[in-house]
């Protein structure tokens, strides 16, 4: 809208002249150009209508009466502030300046949110200390060192006990593993032996029919030989 130029006037100029026009401060040739632009530019025409309507509405607003007590309250507040500053003034030498500087440094920390977090942290720590049955007055250097050494002692004992338990446990495990292995070996040996026995038996059983076969073949040969001899004898007898 503001880049357009209509009726020889850019919209930006119309925007600036609009306040003067609504104040009835725009006269002569400028007023004519302004009116021409208003009639030819739709956006500026709408702006004029809305702005004049808004101005009319705002003119209806009247000044409101402040509460009766306001002046009294202001005077009371300012006199209080004056008293405070009067009290603060003598400290303004070194401590006052130091306090202000410290305040400025800690200003980001001194917020309600940070205070709330600190409160929660304190509450948690107190709760933990209570649960652990630790009293604040016990937290002297002597007590702390005593607590430290006794805790260390307890921890060392616990550590030694645990080590012993683990060592025994590992030994027992080794023994159990060793006995299981020896059993397994024995079983394997037995199984092997049985296997061997079975194999020899099978071999023996397989050899018997062959021997029988050979034997029968020998008998047949003998029988054949015998029958041959008998044949020969019979032939000889016949010849005789």
């Amino acid at each position: 809208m503001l880049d357009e130029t209509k009726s020889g006037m850019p919209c930006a100029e119309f925007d600036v002249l609009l306040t003067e026009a609504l104040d009835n401060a725009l006269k002569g040739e400028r007023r004519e150009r302004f009116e021409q632009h208003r009639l030819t530019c739709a956006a500026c025409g709408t702006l004029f209508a809305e702005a004049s309507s808004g101005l009319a509405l705002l003119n209806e607003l009247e000044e409101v009466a402040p509460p009766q007590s306001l002046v009294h309250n202001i005077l009371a507040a300012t006199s209080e502030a004056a008293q405070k500053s009067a009290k603060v003034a003598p400290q303004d030498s070194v401590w006052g300046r130091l306090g202000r500087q410290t305040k400025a440094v800690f200003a980001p920390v001194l917020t309600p949110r940070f205070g709330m977090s600190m409160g929660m942290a304190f509450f948690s720590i107190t709760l933990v200390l209570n649960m652990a049955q630790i009293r604040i007055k016990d937290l002297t250097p002597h007590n702390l060192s005593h607590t430290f050494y006794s805790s260390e002692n307890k921890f060392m004992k616990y550590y030694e006990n645990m080590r012993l338990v683990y060592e025994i446990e590992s030994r027992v495990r080794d023994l159990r593993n060793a006995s299981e292995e020896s059993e397994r070996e024995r079983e394997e040996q037995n199984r092997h032996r049985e296997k061997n026995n079975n194999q020899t038996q099978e071999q023996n059983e397989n050899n018997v029919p062959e021997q029988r076969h050979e034997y029968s073949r020998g008998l047949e040969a003998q029988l054949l030989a015998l029958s041959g001899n008998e044949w020969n004898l019979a032939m000889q007898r016949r010849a005789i």
Partner: protein
Amino acid sequence: MDEAQVVAQLVRRCAQGEAAAWEDIVRRFHRRIYNICYRFAGSPDDAQDLTQEVFIKVYRSIGSFDGAQASFNTWVTTVTRNLLVDHFRKTRNERATDSIDAAQGADEDGPTLADRLAADGTENPQRHVESRERREMVHGALQQISPDLREAVILRDLQDMDYREIAHVLKVPEGTVKSRINRGRAELARLLQRTYRQAL
């Protein structure tokens, strides 16, 4: 002695620690400051608190006022505006997105209908009620427009400050002030038009 000279003398006396001068300043300016705060913040309670804060700030820093740079009126308005902007930033999260309807009942501390009727008994009471309702709607709509536009419109149309003074208070060029005023007025009209349409 004109008004500006009287005020300048009061300020000088006040800076020297004269309590009566300070009281005179408070009585002269409290109404104006209260109205700026009320139109900007929207609620009478906030306006009262903010007005007190403005005067405490003015009281503390009145020694730093330089009449050569700006009038006391402009200076006090600048202090008020800065405080209102701070207040707006601080309460941004707390502020609910109030509708225009919600803000309608805010004008509690303003002149009552009875006051207005007493002031002009010849007018029709029905018209008074309508006029009051319309004013409340305009006040509610004013809270809906952006703070940049709102402050420019308040200073120009409700406080009758000239563009140069407003530019000094807002620390922006005069052209920007005029543009903000135009946009603020147009935005207000659009908002109220929408509200009327919804109501119908």
